[in-house]
């Protein structure tokens, strides 16, 4: 189930369209990865979908300008028409414009929280794996404990205490979802720290920080990038859950989950345009990021799960 609710990604293995093996020799690793990625049809479609949604949310309002701040009760609950392509919601916001407006929040919060989670997880995992011994044991038990409490439950507890804004939301989501990447990076660090070049660096007097910063992290970059992509997918889904369950932003600010929550009562009265577009938007974008992650994992040939 979703990240959110779900922790971790769809189990991988090689997807049906996993990269071809017959790549030419003498090509750089990165170029090889790009070539493999571009042969994964699902992943390329995913990338296109993400680009389209960014254009839709950020450039769209330039072409289709709507008032998303003020309510217009005289034009509330209108069906789709020439002047409101996707109709209007219960307080008169144009629904298509709202889809762009809310999408900005969903995408920005999802991206930022996903990246933040990956950064925290990477540092934690690298430190634990590099330190080893009891420090590692304690740090990883903390990760286990975090995974034992599903993110959704923690988020609801927090929602009972405070109502965050966009930045608060990013921070909270980042702080509850760094656990899976930390496990992946730790596993990577365990193999990297015993490489000769790390031992050599230490022997000639290089510091631990330098060993982690110059060797371990750069060599884990493919693992981290793949983890970050899945993390973003999960975060976008998590934002949708969180807004739906009530920790969301206050109107007139909204995101796709908030739109779904607001349109809930419209389900039975046939106003499908309040529910279906934001729902499909979430599904498409999350699918797209997962497909990209899948493609990257195959392209970089890394294990994607912890």
């Amino acid at each position, binding site marked *: *189930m*979703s990240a*959110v*609710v*779900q*922790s971790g990604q*769809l*189990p*991988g*293995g090689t*997807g*049906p*369209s996993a990269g071809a093996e017959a790549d030419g020799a003498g090509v750089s690793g990165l170029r090889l990865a790009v070539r493999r990625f571009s042969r994964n049809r*699902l992943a390329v479609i995913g990338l296109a979908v993400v680009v389209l949604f960014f254009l839709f949310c950020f450039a769209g309002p330039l072409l289709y300008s709507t008032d998303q701040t003020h309510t217009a009760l005289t034009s509330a609950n209108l069906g789709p028409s020439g002047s409101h392509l996707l109709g209007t919601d219960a307080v008169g916001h144009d629904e298509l414009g709202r889809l762009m407006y809310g999408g900005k929040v969903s995408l920005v919060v999802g991206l930022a929280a996903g990246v933040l989670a990956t950064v925290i997880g990477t540092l934690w995992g690298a430190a634990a794996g590099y330190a080893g011994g009891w420090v590692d044991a304690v740090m*990883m*038990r*903390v990760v*286990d*404990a975090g*995974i*034992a*409490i*599903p*993110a*959704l*439950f*923690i988020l*609801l*507890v927090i*929602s*009972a*205490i405070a109502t965050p804004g966009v930045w608060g939301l990013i921070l909270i989501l980042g702080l509850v979802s760094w656990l899976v990447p930390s496990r992946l990076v730790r*596993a990577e660090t365990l193999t990297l720290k015993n490489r000769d070049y790390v031992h050599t660096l230490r022997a000639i007097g290089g510091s631990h920080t330098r060993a982690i910063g110059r060797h371990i992290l750069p060599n884990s970059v493919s693992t981290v990038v793949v983890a970050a992509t899945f993390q973003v*997918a999960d975060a976008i*889904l998590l934002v*949708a*859950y969180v807004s*739906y*369950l*009530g920790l969301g932003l206050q109107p007139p600010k909204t995101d796709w*989950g908030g739109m*779904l929550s607001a349109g*809930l009562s419209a*389900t*039975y009265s046939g106003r499908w345009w309040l*529910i279906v577009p934001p*729902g499909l938007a*979430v*599904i498409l974008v*999350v*699918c797209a990021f*997962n*497909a990209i992650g899948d493609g990257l994992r195959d392209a970089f040939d890394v294990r994607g799960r*912890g």
Partner: protein
Amino acid sequence: MSTFLYLTRRVLQAAAVILIVTVATFCLLHALPGGPARGILGPQATAQQIAQFNHEQSLDQSLPVQYFAYLGRLLHGDLGTSYTLNEPVAQLIQERLPKTLVLTVLSAGVGLLLAIPLGMWQAVRRNKPVDYVITTLSFVAYSTPVYFLGLMLVLVFSHILPWFPAQAPQGDTLAQVFADPAGLVLPVAAGAASVVAVFSRYMRGATLENLSEDYVRTARAGGSRRGAILRRHVFRNSLTPVVAMLGYYVPVLFGGALVVEQLFNYPGMGLLFWTAAQSSDYPVLLGCVLVISVATVVGTLAADVVQRFIDPRVKEGRA
């Protein structure tokens, strides 16, 4: 490492994890605005009343002392008292948990029954249209918020086609729940979708792995038919590790139950938790968190142990 040593170590690790969770819930309880006193006495309480309450409840003692007292109460099954329902949290959870278990077990069971044949079918037809279609559907199901799926199910199968009720079975006892099986259909369907998505992928992977094993080639060479090999060897060898993965899936199942119960108004632990979040009923919230994390730790432990025993090649795969 000997089996005994391994088991001891894993159990100790699990205990340590649960201990960390209790530290976290304890800290959360104390990080609340105004602390528990404000929560119970309400915003009108005077400073004097709060001080007296804190003294009566030993809340004026040092944090370590309070933590160990809290731990002692937990060990005796005392999870505190609900602010709003005025009942012991343990009792509330005891009443609701069985209903949530019914929901999660049914969702997981139905999900697995669909996922296992689907995954095997995909593996056998690898890179054929069927494989692509099911993979795509898995992606979609995995990426769909459970509440949106539930909403669509209600819209189609309850509103447009009046086949099933839009509300889950009501009532306090399990007998009342089972008296209304039609009411369980949509909630279970919503909960099972992601299980199908995730576990069909696991099953596909496990089947593919087994199909490439030497014994399959040997059996083929020995004249066994493909179907017989699939049934007799590949199915069995793939099934156990995949089912064991359910242990890791416990937190997801509970997360799903939270959303499904809220959406279908099913009076289980998820709905209890959701209601408590609306009314800032912290003892209930943290009590539920504790119960769920213990379930998760036990699930993970079980999955680790099962995987180790069925496949001797797995040694400390997940540290």
